[in-house]
């Protein structure tokens, strides 16, 4: 059943996550990771595994905690609040879920327990030069040679590739009128000879992206995930979930910005009064509060719809992504404006949220893209 409220266990998860992140993921850590090529440490990942997060929604038989998607969304909200760096969604959602849904028992046994216990980090390499996550953008070919498939080509905008131990690579194995048809998923070890991972210099340094080149990589049949040519639907399903989680991160990030601005507006004095007493400033804050409230409602609806596999889940995620994306960008922009000069400095944390808002808006389609999909529901 669709439940908008949060229960006691979820309250506990939220409190625990907030405490954990305050202790383990302060801004000093995040800023250190911005300067780190992989963008995460093994030590941090191990700590997350110890509290059960790396396998949160995986079944117990594969070492997971078997919790619900809404629980995961609550956790992601807290991660977004702290602009947590690292390959969390790439591993648990974009890689583990396709393996869970499409994998053979042997594949599940090989990958899922190691993901759950934090030994393995993964990412999905899907997007190419057009920068869009869609089946028509998947053109890198894999051609059969005996039992194997041979991969040659490049993927771009690949998140977290340096941290990853394995890649889930979407390849074109057949050309057809329907771009969803003819995509095959391959599991590839990053250490294979012939794989080159080049860091891309990104605006949001807390979210690393890379170009990954594959030079005649042989993928044996046991590492083909799901049926040949039928891989897209697993990525699409994972992306729907990842998008819903990004909405939670955006709401969490937006709330940090608002709280930080409110504190600042209460204490910063100009013209002999706290700037928060001036209507020009307080109305900005009221607008931020209002939009965040509705963004949260849509985010909760999206998370619950996905959890319940509701027939309206696509629409709910489209709506949440468009609205949360616009809202977080607006809120983070005003976060800088309200702080004035100090908000514009590198030392103040506000720009981390501003940049994260821009990065997340583009991931899995921006607001305009999702609004067009909403319009198509009414065609």
């Amino acid at each position, binding site marked *: 059943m669709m439940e908008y409220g949060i229960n006691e266990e979820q309250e506990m998860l939220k409190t625990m996550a907030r405490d954990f992140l305050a202790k383990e993921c302060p801004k000093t850590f995040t800023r250190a990771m911005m300067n780190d090529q992989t963008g995460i440490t093994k030590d941090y990942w191990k700590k997350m595994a110890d509290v059960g997060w790396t396998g949160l929604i995986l079944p117990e038989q594969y070492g997971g905690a078997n919790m619900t998607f809404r629980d995961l969304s609550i956790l992601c909200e807290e991660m977004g609040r702290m602009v947590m760096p690292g390959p969390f969604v790439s591993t648990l959602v974009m890689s583990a879920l396709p393996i869970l849904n499409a994998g053979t028992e042997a594949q599940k046994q090989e990958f899922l327990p190691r993901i759950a216990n934090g030994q393995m980090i993964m990412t999905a390499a899907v997007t190419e030069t057009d920068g869009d996550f869609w089946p028509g953008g998947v053109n890198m070919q894999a051609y059969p040679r005996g039992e194997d498939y041979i991969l040659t080509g490049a993927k771009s905008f690949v998140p977290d590739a340096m941290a990853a131990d394995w890649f889930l690579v979407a390849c074109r194995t057949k050309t057809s009128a329907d771009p969803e048809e003819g995509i095959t998923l391959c599991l590839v070890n990053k250490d294979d000879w012939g794989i080159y991972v080049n860091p891309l210099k990104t605006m949001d340094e807390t979210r690393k992206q890379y170009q990954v080149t594959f030079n005649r990589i042989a993928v044996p049949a046991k590492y083909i995930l799901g049926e040949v040519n039928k891989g897209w639907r697993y990525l699409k399903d994972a992306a729907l979930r990842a998008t819903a989680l990004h909405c939670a991160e955006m709401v969490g990030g937006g709330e940090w910005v608002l709280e930080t601005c409110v504190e600042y507006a209460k204490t910063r004095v100009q013209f002999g009064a706290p700037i928060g007493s001036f209507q020009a400033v307080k109305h900005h804050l009221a607008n931020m509060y209002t939009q965040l409230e509705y963004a949260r409602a849509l985010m909760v609806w999206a998370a619950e719809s996905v959890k319940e596999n509701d027939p309206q889940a696509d629409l709910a995620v489209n709506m949440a992504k468009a609205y949360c994306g616009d809202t977080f960008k607006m809120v983070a922009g005003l976060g800088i404006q309200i702080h004035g000069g100090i908000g514009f400095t590198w030392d103040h944390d506000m720009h981390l949220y501003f940049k994260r808002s821009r990065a997340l808006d583009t991931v899995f389609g921006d607001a305009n893209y999702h*609004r067009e999909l909403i319009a198509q529901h009414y065609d």
Partner: protein
Amino acid sequence: MVSEQSGKETAFRKQVRDWLKTNLPKGWGTPEYHAPERQTEAAQALGEKWTKTCYDAGYAGFGYPKEYGGIVRPDWEIRIIREEFTLCGTPPGPMSQGLLMAGPTILRWGQEWQKKRFLPKILNGEESWCQGFSEPDAGSDLANVRTAAVRDGDDWVVNGQKVWTSNWMFADFGLLVVKTDPAAKRHRNLSYFIFDCTSPGFSRRPLKQMSGESEFGEMFFDNVRIPHKNLLGELNMGWYVALTGLAAERSGGFAVGGRSTARRGWGNMESIVELAKETKHYGKAVWDDPLFRQRIAQFAIQGEAMRANGALQGAMARQGKKIDPNEVSVSKNFSAELRQHSDDMVMEILGAYSQMVEGSPLAVNGGDWVYGMLRWRGATIERGTSEINRNIIAEKILGLPREARGND
């Protein structure tokens, strides 16, 4: 498998739907239905009759104790009733001024005799209410009222003028905020009374609005006597009583996203999409214009956000979590501004036809779209301007300091 509860809900929903089908005015929701002109005896009679019909059937009067005429039902039944009523865009009866403001205020502050005397007839629609708050010099600065009452024996003698009064024409009773202690400080000098609209010395007249109608009126008090027992709350503490009514009024929200099909009703997502599909400009359907698709989709998102937020707050309330009463300022602003944005969008869809009003053979949908656009310019002013609501959100919810006021 269908659970026992969901089976019960489906059966109850059907019961409500069937009842609506039988009891709504004939032809309701179809183009054949012609609603009575606004602000006429006929419109008033329709509202009163509809309220009574709903109340008698047990489909209205929720949220009040039984002894004051309230109707008690399980939450899930009330939810289904509200959903089904919204779907039909029912006549306006049950959202009258009495139910919206007088009821909550009397329930919260009223003396026992006042609750017994007034609440049941508010709930069944028998008596109609208005409120005298705003004055020419007391709009957003509501505490600045000048209308004064002077004690004389068991009565108070009232002189002054009120303005922007809804339901001014048909009200049987009114709520009144007056100055009762000219020497006292702001917010400690006002009292709150119930007055009888048939009192000698009371008169009223229409105020013509930019939409051409007179939904609002002015009220004049010329030595009107109000018995002391009609005082609501404590003497000179009327400001705090008034806040209850204001909050309750804001919580009414605006009819956005509902599926109102009444002639006077206003468009929802489906009706706007339909209009965009039917309307062509320069040989091309508006619905095929990517810019309009974006804007209409944005409207759909915001309508859905309102629904989802209601569900979220409902869930929190069920779990016993406290919802800040000032949240009504958030939803009021959101719905009022959404309403205006969507009206503006519809005007652009209509193009040259947006100039045609009721009475013109070229007016689309009888001129309703254009009427709505004009009428709801007031949405961001009435019930607390958007600016006042932003102050409330910032100061009461976020805890920001007040700006220095000239009359502090």
